[in-house]
C-alpha cells in the first residue's frame, strides 16, 4: 500500500517533469526568472559573508597608523619606529617614508596622474604599529594616547575604527538583504503561482474530464503541485549556476584586491549546505506558490 503510494507520487513527479520538458522555452523562461530572483538575495548574502570574512581576518592583526610631521627626517622616523617597537604592547612597527607612501599611493589608488600635477608630495610619512594580539582594549587605548603625544606625531589613528564601521555597514546590508529576500520570496511565489494559474486555465478541459471520470480533488491537484516543485527545484539550480558564474567572475578582481592587502583571502562560493538550503527554499516557494494558486482556482473548475 505504502509502496504504491510512493510509486504513484514518483510517477507524478516524472510525468510533470516530462510535461515541462515538452515545453522547453516556456519552462526555461519561467525557471530563469525564478533563478534570478533566488540568486539576487543569495548573492547579497554571499557578498556580506565574504566581506565579513575579510574583516575578521584583519581583526586579529590590530594596527595603528602614526602620521608624522613633515619636519621629521627619514632617519628620525626610523628611530621613532624602533623606539616604539620596544614597548610591551607592541609586536612590531614599520616606517613608511613620504616617498614610499607616494609610490604605494600611485600603485594602488589609480590617482597617480593627479599627483603629478602637485608641486610636492602631499603624503605624510607613517609609522605602522602592530599591536600584540593579546592586548586588552584599555591597554591599547592607553598606548594610543601615549603615542599620539610623542613629538613629531601629528595624528595617531587606530585602524580598528574602519573595521567597526565596516561591520556596521555589513550589518545594515545584511538586514537589507533579509528584507530583499523576503520580497523576492514573494516574487517567486507569485511567479510560480501565475504560471500555474495559466497552466490550470490551459488544462481546464482536462481537469473537467478527470473530474468526470471520478478524479478526486487531491488527484487533480497533485500534478500542479509537482509542477511547482519542479519550478522551484530547477529555478534553484539556475540560481546556483548564476551564483557560480558570478563567483568565478569575481574571483580574479577579488584575488587582486586581496593581494594588494597582503591577504590570502579567496572569494568563497555558497558551499554545500547553503546550496542545498537554497534549493530547499526554491522547492518550498515553488510548492507553496502552486498550492496557493491551486487552492484558489481549481475548486472553481467543475463539470457543467
Amino acid at each position, binding site marked *: 500500500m505504502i509502496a*504504491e503510494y510512493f510509486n504513484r507520487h514518483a510517477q507524478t513527479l516524472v510525468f510533470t517533469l516530462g510535461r515541462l520538458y515538452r515545453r522547453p522555452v516556456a519552462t526555461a523562461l519561467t525557471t530563469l526568472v525564478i533563478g534570478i530572483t533566488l540568486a539576487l538575495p543569495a548573492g547579497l548574502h554571499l557578498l556580506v559573508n565574504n566581506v565579513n570574512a575579510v574583516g575578521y581576518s584583519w581583526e586579529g592583526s590590530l594596527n595603528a597608523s602614526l602620521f608624522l610631521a613633515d619636519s621629521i627626517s627619514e632617519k628620525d622616523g626610523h628611530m621613532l619606529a624602533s623606539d616604539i617597537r620596544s614597548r610591551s604592547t607592541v609586536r612590531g612597527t614599520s616606517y613608511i617614508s613620504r616617498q614610499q607612501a607616494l609610490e604605494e599611493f600611485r600603485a594602488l589608488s589609480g590617482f597617480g596622474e593627479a599627483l603629478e600635477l602637485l608641486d610636492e608630495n602631499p603624503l605624510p610619512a607613517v609609522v605602522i604599529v602592530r599591536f600584540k594580539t593579546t592586548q586588552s582594549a584599555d591597554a591599547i587605548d592607553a598606548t594610543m594616547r601615549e603615542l599620539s603625544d610623542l613629538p613629531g606625531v601629528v595624528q595617531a589613528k587606530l585602524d580598528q575604527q574602519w573595521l567597526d564601521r565596516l561591520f556596521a555597514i555589513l550589518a545594515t546590508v545584511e538586514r537589507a538583504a533579509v528584507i530583499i529576500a523576503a520580497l523576492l520570496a514573494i516574487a517567486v511565489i507569485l511567479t510560480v503561482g501565475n504560471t500555474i494559474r495559466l497552466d490550470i486555465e490551459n488544462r481546464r478541459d482536462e481537469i473537467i474530464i478527470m473530474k*468526470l471520470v471520478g478524479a478526486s*480533488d487531491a488527484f487533480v491537484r497533485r500534478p500542479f503541485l509537482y509542477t511547482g516543485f519542479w519550478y522551484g527545484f530547477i529555478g534553484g539550480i539556475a540560481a546556483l549556476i548564476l551564483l557560480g558564474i558570478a563567483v568565478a567572475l569575481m574571483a580574479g578582481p577579488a584575488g587582486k584586491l586581496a593581494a594588494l592587502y597582503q591577504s590570502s583571502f579567496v572569494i568563497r562560493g555558497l558551499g554545500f549546505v547553503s546550496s542545498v538550503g537554497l534549493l530547499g527554499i526554491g522547492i518550498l516557494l515553488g510548492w507553496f506558490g502552486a498550492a496557493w494558486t491551486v487552492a484558489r482556482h481549481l475548486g472553481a473548475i467543475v463539470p457543467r
Partner: protein
Amino acid sequence: MGDIVYLHRVAKRYPGGHDALSDVTLTLEQGEMAFLTGHSGAGKSTLMKLIALIERPTRGQVVINNQNISQVRRSQVAKFRRNVGVIFQNFNLLNDRTVFDNVALPLVIRGETRDTIARRVRAALDTVGLLDKERLYPIVLSGGEQQRVGIARAIVAKPPLILADEPTGNLDPELSAEIMALFRRFNEVGVSLLIATHDVELIRSLPYREIQLKGGHIADRATAAPYEQPA
C-alpha cells in the same frame, strides 16, 4: 432494491428560472439497457447530469446504485462517480496522452497497480477492437475510433452503470450501429446502460425500452418503469 437508477418526482430548475425537468419519476433496473430520447431541450442532458452528480436536483429523490445522492457530500462526489462510466458525444479525451493512458485514467485515479492497469486497459481496448492503437494519440484516430476509446475508458473500471450522452451524435450510421452493438454486448454481461440519443431510426429497431422526455416530463408514463415481463 433491484433498481440501479431510481428517480422520484425529480425537478431541476437552473439559476435564472429555467425548468429543465419537472416531476420526473423513472427507474432503470439492475442489468437493464434503455434509451432516453426527446428533442434537444427536452431535459435529456439534465437528467444525465443528475445521475452523474454533475448537477443536483432542485426537488425529489435520486437514488443511484442504492445510494441517495442527497447524502453524497461534495467531497465524496469523486468517489461516487467511479461507479458510473460516462460516455460523451464529443468523446472528451485527453489529446496529449496516448490511447492507453486515456483508457487507464479511471484506474490511475483509483490507485490501481501498474500491472492491474496494463492488464485491464488491454482487455478494454481489446473489447472495443483498438488493441493495436494503444500507443497512438487520439487526434490521429477517426471519430468512431475516438468514441471507442471513450467507451473503453468508461468500461475499464467495470462500473455497474454506464451513461452515454449522444454517443453516436457525431458518427455516421454505420459507425453508430457498431457502437450500439458494443453496448448490447456490455448489457449481455450484466452492465446497466442508459443511453441518451435523438437517433430514433437507430433505436426503434432494437428491443430496448425507450423513455421519451418532452419539455421536462416523461412523455408516456408507461415507459417510466421496465415493461412487465410476459408471464
